[in-house]
C-alpha cells in the first residue's frame, strides 16, 4: 500500500510499504477513505517530538471502511467507521473511568518505559505519533490496522459525508473537552489562545456550553475571521497588546476561564518565546510556552485554565506563583476521544455543530508531503488539509 512516512525534520514522503494484517483477535483493518493532517502532526514535522524513527507512518485523524476483522472484533465488513486517535482497551481501570487516553494497555509493554521515565506513568497508545506512544502505524495511508476495534471506532451512518464526521477522530472532541475542562458557568467570558482547528472547535463548544462571551486570540486574520463567524470577539496579538486588551474587555477582571489551544510551538516575537526558541534549538529545553504563560496571567482570580495544547517536556518560567496566588485550577490531557464520540456524532447529525467549515484543502494521499508543507508554511489560509487516497491527483 501507499503511506505517508516520516524521515526527519521537514522530510515526509509517500512510500510503498507492506499492507497491514490482523495480528490480535480484537483487530480490524480499515480501508481509509479520508484522513487529515493535524496541528499535532506539525510538531512531528518540525522534529519536536522524540522517539520518531525513519519510516514511521503518520496520521491519527482518519476514517474508512471495515475490510477485515479479527475473531473478537465487533465490527462488520463494509461498515463505515471513524477511529479515535487514542488506542484504548476498554477494560482497564482507567478505561472504566472513561479516561481513555490514560489506558494502561493500549501501549505495548516495551514502549511503556519511556513514558514512565518521562511522565511517571506511561499513557495510552496513539496512532502515528512516535514510539513513546506505542509506535503504531498511523492512518495517512491506504489501510490501517486498528487494535481494540470493538472499543474505539464508532460506526457512522452510510449517508453522512466523510467530511462531516472525520473530525470525531480528534480535534472536535479535543475542542469540546477543552471547553468542558474550562468548567464554563452561565455568564462567563472565555478566552481562547489559538484559532487552529482545536481552538475553533473550543470556541463553538464554549458557546454551546453557555459562555456569554468568547474572546479568540491569534495572529492569522483568516483564522480569526472564522472564530468571529461563531460569535467570538477577536484579538490579533500582532496588532494588539493581548493582556491589556483582555483586561479592558472584561472590565478589569480577566476572563473567567482561559483555554490554551496553541501548544509547544507558540509563534510571535515575545521575549520569553525567543529565549525558549534559542534553548529549543540548542537542546537545552523543549517547549515554547508563551501562550500558557499569558493565559495564566490574564485569567481572573479563582478562574479556570484549560490546556488542550500539547506539551512534551519541561518548561521554564511557568508562572507558578501567579497560578498559586490566584488560586487557579488547571485541567488538561490528551483527549478521552471514545468518551465524547457518541454525543458529538449526534450533535453533527442534528446539525448543532458545524465541522466542514474548517476544511480549506482536499488532496490526494500522494500529495500529502505538499499538504504538510502548505499547512506548515501558510497557516493563515490552510486551516485543515483532508487527504483522500482515491482523490484524483492534481495536475502539476
Amino acid at each position, binding site marked *: 500500500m501507499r503511506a505517508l512516512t516520516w524521515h526527519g525534520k521537514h522530510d515526509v514522503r509517500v512510500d510503498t510499504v507492506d499492507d497491514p494484517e490482523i495480528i490480535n*483477535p480484537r483487530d480490524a483493518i480499515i480501508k481509509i477513505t479520508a484522513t487529515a493532517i493535524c496541528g499535532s502532526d506539525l510538531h512531528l514535522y518540525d522534529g519536536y517530538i522524540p522517539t520518531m524513527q525513519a519510516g514511521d507512518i503518520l496520521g491519527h485523524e482518519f476514517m474508512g471502511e471495515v475490510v477485515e476483522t479479527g475473531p473478537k472484533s465487533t465490527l462488520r465488513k463494509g461498515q463505515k467507521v471513524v477511529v479515535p486517535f487514542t488506542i484504548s482497551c476498554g477494560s482497564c481501570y482507567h478505561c472504566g473511568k472513561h479516561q481513555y487516553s490514560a489506558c494502561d*494497555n493500549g501501549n*505495548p*509493554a516495551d514502549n*511503556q518505559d519511556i513514558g514512565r521515565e518521562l511522565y511517571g506513568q506511561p499513557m495510552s*497508545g496513539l496512532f502515528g505519533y512516535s514510539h513513546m506512544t506505542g509506535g503504531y502505524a498511523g492512518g495517512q495511508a491506504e489501510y490501517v490496522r486498528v487494535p*481494540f476495534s470493538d472499543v474505539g471506532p464508532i460506526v457512522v451512518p452510510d449517508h453522512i459525508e466523510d467530511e462531516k464526521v472525520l473530525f470525531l477522530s480528534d480535534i472536535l472532541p479535543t475542542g469540546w473537552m477543552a471547553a468542558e475542562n474550562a468548567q464554563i458557568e452561565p455568564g462567563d467570558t472565555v478566552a481562547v489562545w489559538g484559532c487552529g482547528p482545536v481552538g475553533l472547535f473550543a470556541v463553538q463548544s464554549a458557546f454551546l456550553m453557555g459562555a456569554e462571551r468568547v474572546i479568540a486570540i491569534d495572529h492569522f486574520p483568516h483564522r480569526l475571521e472564522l472564530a468571529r463567524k461563531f460569535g467570538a470577539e477577536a484579538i490579533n496579538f500582532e496588532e494588539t497588546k493581548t493582556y491589556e486588551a483582555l483586561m479592558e474587555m472584561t472590565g478589569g477582571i480577566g476572563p473567567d476561564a482561559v483555554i490554551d489551544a496553541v501548544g509547544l510551538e507558540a509563534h510571535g516575537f515575545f521575549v520569553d518565546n525567543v529565549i525558549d526558541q534559542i534553548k529549543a534549538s540548542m537542546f537545552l529545553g523543549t517547549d515554547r510556552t508563551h501562550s500558557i504563560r499569558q493565559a495564566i496571567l490574564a485569567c481572573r482570580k479563582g478562574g479556570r485554565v484549560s490546556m488542550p495544547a500539547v506539551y512534551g517536556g519541561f518548561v521554564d518560567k511557568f508562572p507558578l506563583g501567579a497560578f498559586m496566588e490566584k488560586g487557579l485550577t488547571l485541567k488538561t490531557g490528551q483527549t478521552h476521544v471514545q468518551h465524547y464520540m457518541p454525543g458529538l456524532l449526534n450533535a453533527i447529525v442534528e446539525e448543532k455543530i458545524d465541522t466542514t467549515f474548517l476544511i480549506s484543502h482536499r488532496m490526494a494521499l500522494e500529495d500529502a508531503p505538499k499538504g504538510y508543507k502548505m499547512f506548515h508554511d501558510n497557516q493563515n489560509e490552510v486551516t485543515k488539509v483532508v487527504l483522500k487516497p482515491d482523490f484524483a491527483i492534481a495536475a502539476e
Partner: protein
Amino acid sequence: MTSETTLAPGQRDDAPVTTSKSVHSDRALLAEAITINRPAQELYAFWRDPANLAPIMENIQAIEKLDDRRSRWTVKAPAGREVTWDSVITEDVPGEAITWQSAPDADVANSGRIEFREVAGRGTVVRATIAYDPPAGALGQLIAKLFQREPRIQTRRDLKRFKQLMETGEVATAARTRKQLEEEQA
C-alpha cells in the same frame, strides 16, 4: 491503615524493603507491583500453570512442566546459546501466592514469589519479588549479563504483558504485519 502505630526496631518507614536506597536496583533483589482488573483467583490460576507464562515473558524460550510442582525453564542467551534450569514451587497458597526456587544444581540460582491481593474496585494487586545469584566463571558472566540486562525492567514488562493478556485477552503490539511481529519476538 495498619494497627501498628510504631515502627519496628531498625525499620525506618512503611515502604517495601526492596525500595530501600541501600538495595541496588540492578542487583540481586527486586520487586514490582502491578494492579490487574481481574479477580485474584483467576490470576493465580493462570500463573500456577507454567505453560501459560512463556508467551508473556521476555527471553524465555520454553517452560516445560515436569510435574505439579516442577518445571524446566529454557532461556535464550547471546550467541545462540541456551540456559536451562529446573524450578520448584516451594509454597503454594491457592488464590494468594506462589513461591518458587531453582533446583540445587541450577546454573543460576534464583527464587521468587508472586502475591495476589484483591483491592476493592480495582481488581488485584500483583506483587512479584525476585532474587537471584549469578555464579562465577565464564558461563556465570554470560548468565549474569542476561539477567542483569535491567532485570527490573524485564520483570516490569513481563507483568505488563500479563496484565494486558488478563484484562484484554491479548498482548498489545504495534506490529503491522505478522512478519514484523515475528521479528519483534525473535
